[in-house]
């Protein structure tokens, strides 16, 4: 466990998630313990089926665990109602998805404002914050463009701005560069680097080693369990000593 001087933002104890598919139970997570502190930059790696997506969904309060505890920024989220979880997502979590998930008919500005709409913020405040967030990701000049007028990298920047606009305690990125070419990926990673430097806590799921190499800490998962949790300097990603599990799928 990496000891950080900051207090933990995420504290997970024995988190278990089992899906029922027909009569069969799929154990997606088998008792995971994890602690992430403020201003950490964590990459979660693993094969498909390793449970990293399940962990991501649980961290993002999109899903509920069958057992175990999840404390986010001092809030015990286990066994919360759907409405309270929505509130937690709104206030504490910023999502960046692989396929951007921008609403196609809304301008970049409106897309970024979306989380603020649900936090019942007056429109003038929303506008200001959305503009600031877009400027922060370097899209200050494109606030009135619709997603189909933006390039892939720009779309993902809008998505990042949307994730940041409500000043969440964690930024969750699920394969943020999965749909981007390597050049754009690099620029997004640079953006993440900048955000990290500004103090943002980032958790990123990826199966690409060169993307994971940007993080400061790498959590590797297999079969619903964490198999390694090391600072980047000690992780095989950095030593170019890739085991079979890091191979891109």
């Amino acid at each position, binding site marked *: 466990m990496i000891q950080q001087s900051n207090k933990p933002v995420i504290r997970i104890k024995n988190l278990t998630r089992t899906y029922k598919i027909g009569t069969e139970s799929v154990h997606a997570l088998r008792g995971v313990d994890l602690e992430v502190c403020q201003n950490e930059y964590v990459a979660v790696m693993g094969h498909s089926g390793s449970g990293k997506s399940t962990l991501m969904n649980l961290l993002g309060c999109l899903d509920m665990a069958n057992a175990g505890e999840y404390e986010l920024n001092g809030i015990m989220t286990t066994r919360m109602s759907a409405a309270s979880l*929505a509130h937690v*997502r709104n206030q504490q979590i910023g999502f960046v*998805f692989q396929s951007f998930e921008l609403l196609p*008919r809304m301008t970049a500005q409106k897309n970024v404002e979306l*989380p603020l709409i649900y*936090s*019942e913020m007056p429109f003038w405040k929303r506008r200001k914050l959305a503009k600031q967030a877009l400027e922060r990701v370097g899209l200050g000049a494109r606030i009135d463009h619709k997603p189909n007028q933006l390039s892939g990298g720009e779309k993902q920047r809008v998505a990042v701005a949307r994730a940041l606009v409500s000043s969440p305690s964690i930024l969750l990125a699920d394969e943020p560069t999965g749909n981007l070419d390597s050049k754009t990926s690099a620029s997004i990673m640079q953006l993440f680097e900048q955000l990290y430097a500004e103090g943002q806590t980032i958790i990123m799921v990826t199966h690409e080693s060169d993307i994971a190499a940007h993080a400061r800490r790498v959590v590797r998962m297999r079969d619903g369990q964490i198999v390694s949790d090391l600072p980047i300097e000690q992780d095989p990603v950095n030593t170019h000593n890739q085991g079979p599990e890091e191979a891109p799928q």
Partner: protein
Amino acid sequence: MKKLLLIPILLLRLITQSALLALNQIWVNKTRSILTTLGIIIGVSSVSAVIAAMSGMNNKIMENFETFGTKKIFLWPQRPDSGSKKNLDWWQIRFKEEEFEDMLEYCPSVEFRSFVSDGRNLPARADDTTVEAVRLNGVETHWFDIENREIMMGRPFSHLDETQGRKVCIISKQLRDKLKMDRECLGQTITFGHHMFLVVGLLEEKPGMMFDEGNRDNLEAYIPFKTMRKINNNRWFSVIASCKSTDVAEEAKAEIQFFLRRTRKIRPGEPDTFRVMVMENEIKQVMKVFGMISMVAFGIVSISLLVGGVGIMNIMLVSVSERTREIGLRKAVGARPSAILTQFLVEAVVLCLIGGCIGLFLGHGLAVTISKVVPMMESTRIPLWAVLLSFGFSALVGIVFGMFPAIKAARLNPIDALRHE
């Protein structure tokens, strides 16, 4: 306390936001939205047109009753269905004049009373012009008050005319023209059958009634009741009266019944040997039937609104499933289930209200067309309450039929929704 005050404001904001979103969504899918609301449009337009037609008809009927007189009371002898008097012949149950002598004193709710003899068709001749059949009626002077027939020229029957049975008559304008008399016909004479009458008054034309266009040229002349008794040996007559106001119509009826039972010496328990018909009651009866017809018509056209509602539900379900990813994203960034529910519900309601608006315009057009085409219903208009009702009903349809898709959307699991293809 401050928090409590904030709730309606927040709710209002949520609804306006959802309404704006819904309008945007509807604008994007213009064609689809219009086609979807077609059911509502047709429903609302037919409902409002039916209401307009019904209320137009209602007004017309009321107007007719108004000109016909709502305060009228008709009295005529009638054999009872049971009791010892059920086999009496008409001679024995007929009214006798003396039975009505003090009627106005004993019936405080009754304003006027007039005997009306059976009409008789007689040929009429003035100078050289002859008219085959003119209906000659024997009435008392109050008949003109009760029937609301204005004497535009000349005078009503005088006391002397009535008590002495003078041969004077009051004729209608139509008869005057038919007999080719001078415009100033007063003082001239007309021969009805073998009797010569002096014209003392000219009646205003009878205001047109519904369904009696054919009776327009009904030629009528009125002579004093007593005179009629003299020249005609028909002893049968009926009585027409009026109550002081429509509010006391019931009382007037009861008073007359009580009075007549006494003067006609009907023992308690025996049935009446006469009928009292109060116009007000008849109007109420007609209005009741009419109201029922309206309700049935309204109910039938409401079914089209229901069908429209099913269309709305269908399109909302389509909307929910094609926007599943959007719902997933909205949930991921913090939309509560209630916010999603409101969004889709408001969208359905807005869709219905737009349909209702267009439907009202069409309904108005229909109503105007009806009023132009059908002469009897020239006052066909959509009343304000029907406008409000249409909007209320549209909103209700939106809520009822939008509820299921909205609940479906609100219940979506955010992960599944985000993964939806």
